[in-house]
């Protein structure tokens, strides 16, 4: 395949992915928006008004970046995991496997699809959050950079989950038992300064913490973590996941018998 044909293949996968989540928008776009609005109402307004400030910010402004990031993380991940596993389950992944499309294009196509949904839902949630909280952007490059990298990283993680998954239970175990705890314990609702030394140090191995803090820095200018360190960690995780996913596709693990 020449580079133009590779571009056509990538574009085809991406368009197919976007068409898929747009076709089933009541399952893919609406639920996360409703969930996040409930978070804003309950944690931001009802409970948040009694909490006062967190790291010098009104609680709703503190929690808003984390909630936006949470929607980006869960939607990027779940789009790729469900779409790729669905293709495995219906065996239409074979359409790609018999084609000359290189594995790295397959990987980029699915990941770009996941990023489109993650960033799309993130954008909707950001617009909704303006109703509940006042925003100003402290650093546009940091805000955009970290949200793109976060979406990329969790799309890659979703792809790896889908490659290994043998049944529908396998695609819900990781989101339920790994992703949700990581997100809830990743500084979305609190500053790690509130934690004891042990839990604070333990939190530092949670990649979500770096993403949420970098995004909060981009919007509000406050963070518990060094921003350069945040970008480095997210970049490192993304690289490891990218090459792991590519290796799995090259080997044909759980895809070719």
């Amino acid at each position, binding site marked *: 395949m020449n580079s133009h044909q590779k571009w056509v293949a990538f574009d085809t*996968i991406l368009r197919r992915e976007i068409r898929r989540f747009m076709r089933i928008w009541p399952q893919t776009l609406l639920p996360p928006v409703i969930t996040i609005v409930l978070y804003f109402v309950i944690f931001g307004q009802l409970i948040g008004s009694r909490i006062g400030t967190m790291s010098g910010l009104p609680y709703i402004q503190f929690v808003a970046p984390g909630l936006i990031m949470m929607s980006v993380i869960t939607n990027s991940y779940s789009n790729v995991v469900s779409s790729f596993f*669905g293709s495995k389950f219906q*065996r239409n992944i074979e*359409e790609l496997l*018999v084609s000359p499309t290189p594995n790295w294009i397959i990987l980029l196509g699915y990941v770009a699809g996941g990023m489109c949904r993650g960033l799309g839902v993130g954008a909707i949630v950001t617009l909704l959050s303006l109703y509940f909280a006042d925003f100003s952007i402290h650093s546009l490059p940091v805000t955009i950079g970290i949200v793109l990298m976060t979406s990329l990283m969790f799309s890659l993680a979703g792809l790896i989950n889908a490659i290994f998954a043998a049944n529908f239970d396998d695609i819900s175990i990781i989101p339920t038992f790994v992703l949700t705890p990581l997100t809830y314990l990743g500084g979305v609702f609190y500053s790690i300064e509130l934690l004891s030394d042990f839990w604070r140090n333990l939190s530092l191995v949670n990649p979500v913490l770096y993403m949420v803090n970098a995004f909060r820095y981009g919007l509000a200018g406050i963070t518990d973590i060094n921003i350069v360190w945040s970008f480095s960690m997210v970049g490192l995780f993304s690289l490891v996941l990218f090459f792991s996913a590519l290796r799995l596709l090259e080997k044909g693990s759980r895809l070719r018998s």
Partner: protein
Amino acid sequence: MTSSKQPALSIKNLTKVYDDSFKALKGIDLDVAQGDFFALLGPNGAGKSTTIGIICSLVRKTSGAVTIFGHDVDEDFSTAKQFVGVVPQEFNFNQFEKPIDILVAQAGYFGIKADVALQRAEKYLKQLGLWERRSDLSRNLSGGMKRRLMIARALIHEPKLLVLDEPTAGVDIELRRSMWEFLQEINKQGTTIILTTHYLEEAESLCRNIAIIDHGAIVQNTSMKALLKELNRETFVLDIREDLQVCPVVTDYPITLVENHSIEVEVLKTQSINRLFASLSEQDIHVISMRNKTNRLEELFFDMVEKNLIEGDGEKSDE
């Protein structure tokens, strides 16, 4: 570049051992010439689908070499894949997508732009009688339509080698014959076709060359004509006017009474059928019609598989 002398498909010493140690292929060699209509036959579990899976890279081979128009499927996979279109045994498209979208996407995976893909999709959907259903959800198509959709999908990048794994399974006879005509037409236009089927009549009607695979080994690889010449006996079913209570006896012709008005007779190729009729006539038995019990290829196929089963008895533990 491909030379006209190069085989469309060349398989050398191909083996496949699955993770559970099952030896699906035990070193097969096979060449399919360009422009051929080739039948790959064998009983269930013989290794047909594994071979096809390796050709289109859905199954990883254990050892051996596969080249398509001279391009190795490992070393030059991108070019090799451009030459192959595959119609699998089971439906493997997204049931929630429209036929037109499935075809255009498949073309995209081969690097074909959407405008060209749309033209080709229209051409093949029309040829296969699916154009009116192009915007329906694929899951709402009938079984025969789904099979034709998979053929259209396999042709969308206009491959030089089309591999069909039981394409007419579960398709009614009328539709099956129209699919035969379609396949014969694209074969005439130069596409090499490899076909696996359980309908031996289909293989006999369509294919010029044939390989029979059993227990992961090729037990026969020859032309259809040469193979049919090997048939040294045929079984005929004779419908009789009289109400037979006992089975008639004719020397050298084994006869079985099927029912009161029907008998089966085995006739060797060296025997004259006239003597059979004369002898029956002498016994006041009148034949009103006659037909083959099974088609000729089917008799040969059963003979070979049965023979291989006896000879390869020690290897049956692989199953």
